[in-house]
């Protein structure tokens, strides 16, 4: 077993004053505090960390649009709901983030579904039938295509607005195709396109592999998730839904 950590990300030199003091830190070869801080933008830093290279201006422009689009999934999203359960009970922000990440990892509306949608978008080509075949290949065990929401037969206007906004980026290919074909695709799916499907198309246009796409999808949703959790922590718990419970084994429901 190795006693050392091996990494191609982090490089630093020892400081003779202490074994725990480092200096001249480099990330993927770039001078972290002397060059990146002050010159690299946040999304460029994300790109560097997940790909190992500096992004082109077109890549950082699309990633920035996606980061803004995913920054707040909203309080009806199950992962945000989970985070708010942490907030409303007075759990610390870290607990709310753990709660959100667990739910956001799922195969329905989460990173698992995103991976299936990315797989479909990456292999489908441009022909409509090829796309539907690829989506069918990646369907869940109920036949639901990834990137579509079973909650409605229609695509939300907000999802279409997001798709249009991302589609104006110069790297948009799958996004543009999706914008053009959304009505027929939703008809074929018998349900509306979801933000997860749009995010998968954007990450495919960015050239991300499945692991990179999953990492960014999980990460980029967290700012709004945490904001909603923190907001609930300042409210009375009676203002937050507890819902009714129907125990069908019980004859005299309370």
């Amino acid at each position: 077993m190795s006693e050392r950590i091996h990494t191609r990300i982090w490089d630093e030199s020892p400081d003779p004053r202490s074994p725990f003091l480092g200096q001249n830190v480099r990330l993927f070869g770039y001078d972290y505090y002397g060059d990146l801080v002050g010159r690299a933008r946040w999304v460029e830093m994300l790109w560097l960390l997940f790909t190992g290279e500096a992004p082109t201006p077109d890549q950082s422009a699309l990633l920035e649009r996606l980061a803004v689009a995913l920054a707040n999934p909203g309080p009806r999203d199950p992962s945000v709901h989970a985070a708010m359960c942490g907030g409303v009970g007075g759990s610390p922000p870290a607990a709310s983030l753990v709660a959100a990440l667990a739910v956001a990892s799922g195969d329905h509306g989460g990173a698992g579904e995103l991976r299936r949608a990315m797989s479909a978008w990456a292999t489908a080509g441009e022909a409509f039938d090829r796309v539907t075949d690829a989506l069918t290949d990646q369907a869940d065990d109920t036949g639901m295509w990834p990137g579509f929401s079973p909650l409605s037969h229609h695509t939300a206007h907000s999802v279409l607005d997001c798709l249009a906004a991302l589609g104006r980026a110069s790297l948009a290919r799958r996004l543009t195709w999706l914008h053009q074909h959304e009505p027929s695709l939703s008809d074929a799916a018998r349900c509306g396109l979801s933000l997860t499907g749009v995010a998968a198309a954007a990450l495919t246009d960015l050239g991300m592999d499945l692991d990179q796409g999953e990492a960014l999808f999980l990460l980029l949703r967290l700012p709004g998730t945490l904001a909603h959790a923190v907001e609930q922590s300042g409210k009375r718990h009676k203002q937050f839904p507890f819902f009714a419970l129907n125990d069908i084994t019980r004859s005299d429901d309370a």
Partner: protein
Amino acid sequence: MSRVDPKDYEARIGHVTTRLGGFFPGHSARVRGHDLHEFTVDKRWFDLYLFSLTGRELGDNERDMLEALWTFTSYPDPRIWNNRVAALAGSSRASAALGIGAAIAVTDADIYGLGPCLAAFDFIGAHVADSDEALLQAATDKLRRERRLGGYGRPVVAEDERIAPTMAKARALGLADGPHVRTAFRLDALLAEGRWRMRINYAALCSALHLDIGLTRDDYECILATIFLGGMPPVWKEHNQEAAGGLFPIPVDAVHYDGVTPRRWPD
């Protein structure tokens, strides 16, 4: 599973329908049709856990076997990767709930924990009726395809010290001779005879015993999530009481960089 129509989602707004029971404030708590506090008067926590999860009241020997499977892999060792998360949380003065919760999350792993256990459950369950020849063929096909076979071989050392005490317990409880346990050991012997130097590990035996007791894959996945739990609270506590940040401090020279050479950030 059939597809859910949007109208079915609308019918679910604002309430949950369940057979599991729940909390009726000021009145009672219920579990699967029973008043929890009456039902559990003479029961142990593990009885309730298993009944609530499976809907079955298992025999005492089955319950004792399943509890032993948790016990025999509860190692309070802060080096083990999932435990290390709890220990680092303690050392960093993070809460026990977050540290232990995160350690449980990390148990959802590929080279130990849930990954090999569920793979072994699937494989042994699918091949329990196979002849020796078919069993070995299925195993070698899987090894050639995936380069690993959940439940056989081990990342740190070849021998698994949990096998002997687990089998001793299984024999004492009359559960050592079920078809899945026999299949797990048949495969161990077949692999030992061939060129595959992979001995049975805890994942295969644990999976086989759960299969023989009749638990489902979902039951088993839930159990696996916390089967290593016993080792986590003690390492959190010990390192929460030790010097802050004192667990595994890493000096600069313990990080080996093997990336690209220095370069300038583009303008």
